[in-house]
Structures are given as structure tokens and as C-alpha cells.
């Protein structure tokens, strides 16, 4: 801490005594604070070590083929990670496709179009949406979204897009309601508030003079957004999107309810699938301690951790650079 002359107070003996005690206090306090900081490093290191060492048996048993195999056979002990990695990436991608435009739209509306009184209310509402526990999204998705998808959306989409060459492949198959698309949609709803609040913060923080000069030249709100605000805040917006991506990758409960939980890989977005997190949540109770299956689940956990760490690290770098300028 700051070095301070201990002769500030005139009374010598008592002051010396007090400053010595103060120094001891600083020493102890500093030690406790450092321990708390190191504890965080320890927890993180623990998570990494435990998952990687726990999954080591799976990695060494199946080798690199683990990442490309779609097998999931607990009886013959054949496991592969490809399906769940595929499901994780596809649902996250669907979530982003829906969440980014919506988050942008809401942020744009909040910053540029909303009447101030209404804006505060709506902003709070959006933040409350982010606070709803994920299991609630899961239940709501399972009881409301899934039937709606099965009865209305999926048959309609199949009728109109199912025959289009190429992308038609994505929209074929029985309309179960549960599947990759439903999982992605629920994730989109969950991450929209996160991305939106980062975007709102960034859009508000742009220097007013930049926007004012563009408006002064006669630009419309959209032109100011596209040609001034977005280029200026590009990196922070990317950071916000990555933050949302990180959330979507690791989300468990909401996805488990609606994804259908089947270890299949195919083109159809309507088909049931699984993600790493949902697979772990469902299969864990059925894997005995010390079994190969448990090791496989831990290996999947390690893979999920690596994917989400990369995303989060990117997010942090983007956000730091974005807010620095």
C-alpha cells in the first residue's frame, strides 16, 4: 500500500505503537486478500485439472477418433463425441441467428427511438428476462414452445421450404416439436437480453458529437447507426455477441427439456438431438463411479470447457479493445 510517514501524529510513543499495529494489520489484511485471490485461481485450476484428468481415460481409449465418432453404446462401451459437439454448435448457431438481430433491434430502439420514460421500464423488463432461471425457460419451452412448433411452425415450414433444393434438407422430417431448432430458439430467447444489454451500453457510450455531426449532415437514424455507431462500436458489439455465445454453449436445463435427447446426427433441424451439456445432465445419473462412461462424460465436459473458454477469452479481448477507444 501507500507508504506513509508514521510521524504524522505528534504524540511519539503512542503513535509508534499504533503505526506498528497498523503495519501488522496491513500485513494480515494483505495476506487474506491475496489468499482470496489465489483461491479463485485454485478453483479454476481445479476444474480444469479434474475434468481433463477424469476424461483422460476416454481420450486414451478412443484416441482422436473420439471427436469424429457418432457412437453412443453403453452396452458395448463405444462412445463418441461428434453428435453432441455437433448439437452444441448447431443450437448455438441457431440461437445466434435469431438472438443477434433481435438484440440489435431492441438495443437500437432503446437508445434511439424509445421515449425516455418507457425506455427505462423496457430496459428493466429485458434485464428481468435475463434473470429468469434457466429451468423456467426449459419448462416454458417444453409446455408452450414445443407443441406450438409441432402443430404450426414445423409443418408449415416443411410445406413451403421442404422441397427447396439444398436448404430443404434442413426442414424435413417428422414435426416432433422437440429438436435442434426448438433448442436453438429457447437459447436465443435466453441470450438475447445479454447481448442486448451489452449493445445498449455500447451504443449509449459513443461520443455524442460523432452522432450529432452525422445527424447534422442530414443522415437518418439508420444511416447514423450503420455508418457511425456500428463501425465505432464494432469490437464491443462482437464482444457482447461472444458473451452470449458462451452462455448458449454451456446452457443445460433449458436445452435438456426441448432438444429431444437423441444421439443422432443429420441434416434436419427438426430432428431430436443433444448437446454436450444436456448429454451430461441426462447420462450422468446412469454412469457408475469409475466407469468408462463417466470418463467419457468428463471428457465431454473438458471439451465444452475448452470451447467456452476460447469464446469467453475472445469476448473479453473484444470488449476490452472496444471500450478502450
Amino acid at each position: 500500500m501507500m507508504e506513509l510517514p508514521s510521524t504524522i501524529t505528534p504524540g511519539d510513543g503512542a503513535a509508534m505503537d499504533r503505526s506498528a499495529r497498523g503495519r501488522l494489520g496491513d500485513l494480515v489484511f494483505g495476506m487474506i486478500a491475496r489468499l482470496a485471490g489465489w483461491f479463485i485461481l485454485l478453483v479454476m485450476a481445479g476444474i480444469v485439472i479434474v475434468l481433463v484428468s477424469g476424461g483422460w481415460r476416454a481420450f486414451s481409449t478412443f484416441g482422436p477418433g473420439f471427436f469424429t465418432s457418432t457412437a453412443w453404446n453403453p452396452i458395448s462401451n463405444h462412445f463418441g463425441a461428434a453428435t453432441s459437439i455437433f448439437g452444441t454448435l448447431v443450437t448455438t448457431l441457431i440461437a445466434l441467428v435469431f438472438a443477434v438481430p433481435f438484440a440489435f433491434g431492441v438495443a437500437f430502439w432503446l437508445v434511439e427511438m424509445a421515449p425516455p420514460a418507457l425506455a427505462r421500464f423496457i430496459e428493466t423488463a429485458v434485464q428481468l428476462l435475463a434473470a429468469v432461471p434457466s429451468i423456467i425457460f426449459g419448462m416454458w419451452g417444453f409446455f408452450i414452445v414445443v407443441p406450438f412448433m409441432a402443430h404450426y411452425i414445423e409443418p408449415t415450414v416443411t410445406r413451403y421450404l421442404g422441397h427447396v433444393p439444398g436448404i430443404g434438407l434442413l426442414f424435413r422430417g417428422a414435426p416432433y416439436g422437440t429438436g435442434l431448432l426448438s433448442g436453438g430458439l429457447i437459447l436465443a430467447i435466453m441470450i438475447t437480453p445479454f447481448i442486448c444489454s451489452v449493445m445498449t451500453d455500447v451504443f449509449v457510450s459513443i461520443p455524442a458529437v460523432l452522432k450529432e455531426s452525422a445527424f447534422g449532415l442530414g443522415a437518418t437514424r439508420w444511416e447514423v447507426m450503420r455508418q457511425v455507431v456500428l463501425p465505432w462500436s464494432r469490437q464491443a458489439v462482437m464482444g457482447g455477441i461472444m458473451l452470449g455465445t458462451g452462455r448458449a454453449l454451456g446452457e443445460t436445463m433449458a436445452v435438456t427439456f426441448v432438444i429431444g435427447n437423441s444421439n443422432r446426427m443429420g441434416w434436419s433441424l427438426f430432428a431430436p438431438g443433444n448437446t454436450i451439456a444436456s448429454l451430461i445432465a441426462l447420462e450422468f445419473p446412469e454412469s457408475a463411479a469409475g466407469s468408462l462412461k463417466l470418463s467419457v462424460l468428463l471428457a465431454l465436459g473438458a471439451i465444452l470447457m475448452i470451447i467456452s473458454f476460447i469464446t469467453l477469452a475472445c469476448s473479453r479481448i473484444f470488449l476490452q479493445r472496444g471500450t478502450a477507444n
Partner: protein
Amino acid sequence: MMASPKSQSIDAGGWQRGGAQAVRRRLVERFVSLLCNLATVIVLFVLFSILWTLVTRGAGGLSLPTFLHSTAAPGSGGGLANAIIGSCEQTGLAALIGTPIGMMAGIYLSEFAQDGRIVSLVRFVSDMLLSVPSILVGLFIYLIFVEPAGHFSGMAGTLALAVLFIPIVVRTTEDMLRLVPRAMREAAYALGAPGWRVILNVCLRSARGGIMTGILLALARISGETAPLLFTSLGNLNWSTSLNAPMASLPVTIYQYAGSAYDDWVQMAWTGALLITVAVLATNILARWWLTRNGSAQQ
């Protein structure tokens, strides 16, 4: 705001003179505004749809037995009492464990900058921990705590929640301490106070409103967590407050009940969902209100 409807109508005259290009620009502007309004309406609609579903389906189970009876076999009229107690116990204990550690680590990040690299590393790792998939925390606690002990326990659930709790408190404590004016610290140092008293009695005291808000928000966040509890406290159909035994919690009970085939269990799941959502949202609103009130009082 410069983009108020009034100023727009003033320069609207200017656009119209420009011919086809101006018409196109105006149309694009209108179209984008429409889409933004639509996006906002849809997002709000989703929020209200969730709340509406919870209220209409969950309110039917709000009765005294729900709060007094433990979970029971389908058809025998059980309640949620053990799950509510279990949730409160695990969340509360996790907060008790997590708050001091999180606050000290937050103090470390904001006040011990002379430690250099390691401070940035701790900050980076704490941010990572803030967004680590919560199911991985469950796996971690399972492997280091449940497997050696040989059984699931409420303590394991508490620890898993504490791991999720700490980084949120770290972040808020650091952010709030940074808001404390430099002059205030200098004044305290000038009076001869040792560093630790400056931090505790001056900085922390003036930041306590914000830190309390952060702790409340963190409480709200962990009280709805399901994934980390699945492999740690597991859930318990009977009344149990022992930390050394499997312990029920609202989210896990909701998860087990919602997927069941029994109508009364599904009903209980909705009621539990309503309870937890109301608690979480009320905490959030309270915390935000507190922050705005305290924030304005400080200036």
C-alpha cells in the same frame, strides 16, 4: 434526444426535395424503425408469455399444504416444504461462504494493483469463472467432494453454488470499490489510518450499497441454478435439513416433477416454478431499486 419525432419532422422537408433517393432513404428508415419496434414487442411478448404461463398454471397449487408438506408420491397430496427449505439452506450457506471470499478477492483486485500481473490473471480467471457452464461446476464438486465422501450431500450442493456465487461478488466488489473517489482514500490516509482500515472503514463503507446489490443479484442467480445441484445435492423426497445427506431443492424438484407423467406432480412443478421466479424477479427488482436509491444518495 436529437432523434425525437419533432426534429425528424423538421428535416423531413429536406428529404422530400431529393427525389427518388430521398424516398428510398426514408423508406429504409421507416422499415428499420418498424423492425426495431417489432423486435422489442416480440421480446416483451416472450417475457409476458413466460410470466403469464407461470401464473395461470402455477397459481392453482398455491395453498397452505404446499408450504407445509414435504414432497410425496404422486396422488398423495405432497407439498414443496422440503424443497423450499433445502433451497433456502443451500443458497443461504453458499452466500455465507462466498461473500467473504468474494469480497476479499474483489478488494485484492481493486486495491492491490502493485501485485501486477497476478492481479490481471486473477481478474481474467474470475471473469472466466463467472461464465463457466454451471454444469461443469457440478461435475467438479462431484469429483472432489461427492465421490471421495461416497454419497451426495447438501454440503456438496452448497459448495457448488458457492463456486458460482464468488465470481459475481468479486466483480461487483471490484467495480464498486473503483467508484470510491480517490480524495476519500487520501483524506483517510492523511489522518494516519493504516491501509486496511482505509479499505474496510472508508472504501467498503461507502461502497456497501452497491456491494449489497451485487450480493442480492448473486443470490437471485444461484437460487435458480439446477445443473450444479443435480450431481451434488441430488434431491431428496423426504424432509431433511442435514448437510450430510442428499438435500431437496426447488429447481431440482421442478426438474424431476416437470418431466413426470403425473398431473399433480406437473402441477407442483409449475407452482414451484412460479415461486422461484417470483422470488428471483422480486430480488432483482429490489436490488435495482436499492442501487438507484443508494447511487443517487451518494452524489
